[in-house]
C-alpha cells in the first residue's frame, strides 16, 4: 500500500457569510477577496507542510491544477513541484496533474515533466487529468464537446515526444508542429508512470486500462460515494481481463487524526465545515458545461462532485453526519486505522491520497494531524497488499541522486 500526502491549498479567509453572499468559490469568485501578503505566507506555509510530509515518510506528496478557484490555489502545479523537487529528497512528486488540453502546445507538458523528473532524479508521477468543467471550459474557455478529443491528441503527442529518439513532425487536429523535439527527456524510461485522475467518466476507464495507466478517483465524499465509481472501474477491469492489481487504482480520502475521537471533533469540526460549506460552494451551472460529459456517462447516472446533485449531500451537514457518512475518517489513531483499512480493502485501492490539510486548518493542526497519522496509522496500513501484489505504477528513481546545494558547499 502506498500513501501519498495531498494538498489542495485552499484560501483560508473566505468570509463567514460566503455561502449566503457569494455566487461560487470557483470561476467567478471576486479576486478582491485575495490578499497577496497573506498569499506570500500561505504558499510558503503550504510548501512547508508538503516538505514535512516528505520527512514523515509518506510515499508521495501531491499537487494539482485548478484555475479561478479559492480552494485550489495551484494554477501551475509544476511551479509547486519544482520547488518541492529541490527541498525534498525521498517522496515521489505526484503531480495530479497537468490538464493536458490547457497547455499550448501540449508539448510543454512533456518538457516540464521531463525537467521535473530530471531535477528530482526520477521521482515524478505524471498525472494526466482531463480537468474539471470549471477549470477547462469556464475558466480557460475550452470548448466542452471537443475537450476529450483534444486531451487524447495531447496525450498522444506527449507520449510520442517521450518515446521517439529523433525529432518528428506532428499533424494533429489541434496541434501542428513541424519539429517535435522534447529536450530534456525524463529520467524514467520509457516515461514516468502515468496516473489519470477521473471523476467517473465511463470512457476514461477503458482508455486507462488499454494503456495500463493508473486510475485515481479524487473524491471528497468518502467510501460510500467512491464505492460506486470504483466498483464500476473494477467491473471494467474484470471485463477487460486485466490484472486486478490494487495498485492500478487510487483514491482520495479526507483524514483528521487526534488523540481521541472526542478531541478530533474539538480540533477539526469547524475546519471541515469550512471545507464543505465554503470551499465546495460551487455554483451548479458551472459544474458540468453542456458537452463536457459524454452522453454515455450522463446515461450511466454518474454525477459531478460539485453542483446541484452534490449540494444535496453536502450542505449543512453536522460533524456527526460527516463522520457517519465517511466523508472524513477521523478520531483516535486506532479508529482511523480501522476505518481506513476498511476503505482500502473495500475499494481495492493500492494508492491512497490523504487530505490532511482540510479547509481552514491552521498549520499547527495540519502538522499534528500529519504526524499522528505518520506515526500511528501509516505503518499498519502500509502492509496491506504489500505481499500479494507488485506495484507497477510508482516511480523508479535513480538509486544515487544529486544533493541540492552540494555543488557549491564548502
Amino acid at each position: 500500500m502506498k500513501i501519498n500526502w495531498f494538498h489542495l491549498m485552499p484560501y483560508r479567509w473566505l468570509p463567514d457569510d460566503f455561502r449566503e453572499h457569494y455566487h461560487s468559490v470557483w470561476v467567478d469568485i471576486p479576486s478582491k477577496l485575495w490578499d497577496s501578503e497573506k498569499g506570500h505566507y500561505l504558499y510558503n506555509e503550504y510548501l512547508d507542510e508538503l516538505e514535512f510530509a516528505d520527512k514523515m515518510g509518506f510515499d508521495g506528496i501531491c499537487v494539482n491544477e485548478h484555475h479561478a478557484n479559492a480552494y485550489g490555489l495551484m494554477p501551475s502545479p509544476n511551479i509547486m513541484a519544482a520547488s518541492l523537487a529541490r527541498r525534498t529528497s525521498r517522496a515521489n512528486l505526484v503531480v495530479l496533474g497537468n490538464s493536458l488540453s490547457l497547455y499550448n502546445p501540449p508539448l510543454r507538458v512533456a518538457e516540464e515533466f521531463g525537467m521535473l523528473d530530471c531535477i528530482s532524479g526520477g521521482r515524478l508521477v505524471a498525472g494526466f487529468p482531463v480537468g474539471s468543467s470549471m477549470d477547462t471550459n469556464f475558466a480557460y474557455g475550452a470548448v466542452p464537446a471537443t475537450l476529450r478529443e483534444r486531451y487524447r491528441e495531447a496525450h498522444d503527442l506527449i507520449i510520442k515526444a517521450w518515446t521517439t529518439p529523433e525529432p518528428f513532425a506532428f499533424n494533429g487536429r489541434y496541434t501542428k508542429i513541424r519539429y517535435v523535439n522534447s529536450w530534456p527527456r525524463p529520467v524514467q524510461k520509457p516515461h514516468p508512470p502515468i496516473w489519470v485522475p477521473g471523476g467517473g467518466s465511463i470512457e476514461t476507464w477503458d482508455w486507462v486500462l488499454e494503456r495500463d495507466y493508473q486510475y485515481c478517483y479524487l473524491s471528497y465524499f468518502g467510501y460510500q460515494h467512491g464505492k460506486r465509481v470504483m466498483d464500476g472501474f473494477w467491473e471494467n477491469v474484470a471485463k477487460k481481463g486485466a490484472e486486478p492489481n490494487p495498485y492500478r487504482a487510487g483514491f482520495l480520502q479526507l483524514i483528521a487524526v487526534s488523540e481521541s475521537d472526542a478531541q478530533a471533533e474539538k480540533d477539526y469540526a469547524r475546519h471541515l465545515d469550512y471545507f464543505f460549506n465554503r470551499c465546495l460552494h460551487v455554483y451548479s451551472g458551472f459544474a458540468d458545461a453542456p458537452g463536457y460529459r459524454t452522453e454515455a456517462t450522463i446515461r450511466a447516472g454518474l454525477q459531478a462532485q460539485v453542483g446541484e446533485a452534490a449540494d444535496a449531500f453536502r450542505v449543512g451537514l453536522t460533524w456527526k453526519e460527516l463522520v457517519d457518512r465517511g466523508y472524513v475518517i477521523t478520531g483516535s489513531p486506532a479508529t482511523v486505522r480501522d476505518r481506513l483499512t476498511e476503505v482500502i480493502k473495500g475499494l481495492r485501492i493500492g494508492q491512497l491520497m490523504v487530505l490532511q490539510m482540510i479547509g481552514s486548518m491552521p498549520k499547527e493542526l495540519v502538522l499534528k494531524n500529519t504526524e499522528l497519522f505518520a506515526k500511528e496509522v501509516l505503518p499498519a496500513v502500509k502492509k496491506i497488499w504489500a505481499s500479494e501484489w507488485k506495484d507497477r505504477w510508482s516511480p523508479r528513481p535513480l538509486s544515487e541522486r544529486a544533493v541540492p546545494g552540494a555543488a557549491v558547499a564548502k
Partner: protein
Amino acid sequence: MNGLQTLNLRNGRFNVKYYREGSGAPLVFLHGAGGLPAFTPDLEALAKHFAVTAPLHPGFGTSGEENLHEDVLALTLYAWDLLDALGIEQPILVGHSFGGMLAAEMAALDPRRVKKLILVAPAGLYLEGCPTADFFAMMPDQLVRAAFFDPGSQLARAFVELPEDKRMAEEVMIQRVRGLGAAGRFLWPLGDRGLNERLYRVKAPTLLLWGEGDRIIPAAYAEKFRELLENSAEVKIETIPQAGHLVLMEQMEAATHAIVQFCAR
C-alpha cells in the same frame, strides 16, 4: 418525432431530420441552441405564406455532430450541402440566435444564393462591455428569467416544464444538454469566431429582428450587425416591444408579421 422527415447526407455521415410545411417561396428556418421540439406555432404562421423547411442541426436529434468538429466553415458548408440535397435554390433564410449566426455565415459564404436574410436575435458577434449572457451556465429557472420578457407567463413556464414521467423527463434533459453541447462547438465561450470579418460579403436584404427586452443577446447588438452589413446589404432593424430573446415565441404575431412584411417588399 411528429412530422419529421429524414434525409441521408454525405453517405450517412449526417442523418438529418427536418420539418417541411406550407407552400410559396422557400423559407429555411434555422433554430437556436435550445433546439426545435416541434413545428412550433411561429413556424405554422410562416407556413401560411412560405414553403417552410426547418432542419434540426447536428446534435439536435440528428447524427453526425462530431463530423463538424468545432469548425464554423464545416458547419456552414454542411448547411449549404443540406439545402442542395433538399433542392432549395434561393432561400429566404431565417435564423434565430445560434441559427441566426449560421444564417449569417451562410449568406457571407454564398452571398448570391440568399434571397432575403432574417436574423432574429443572432449570435456570432462580440460587443465589448456587453458580452452575450452565459446561457450555457444557467439553471432552468435562470434561463427562463433571462430568455423571456415575461418569465411569469404560461408560455415561459411551459418552456422548462418537464414531462411527469421520470424517464421521459430524463430523456428531455439529455436531449437539451446534447443540443447545447453541439451548439457549444461553434459558440463556446461566447466570443466571435470570425463572423465580424465575413459579414461584409452579405448581399441579401437583411432584417435584424430583436426583442426589445432581450437579456441574452441585448438589442444593442443590432447596431453592431448593421454597422458590419450596411456597406454591402440593405439593412432594416425592427425591435419588438414586450419580447425577450425568444421573440418568435413570445410575440409570435408581431414577429412573424415583420418577417412576412419584409419578404413582401
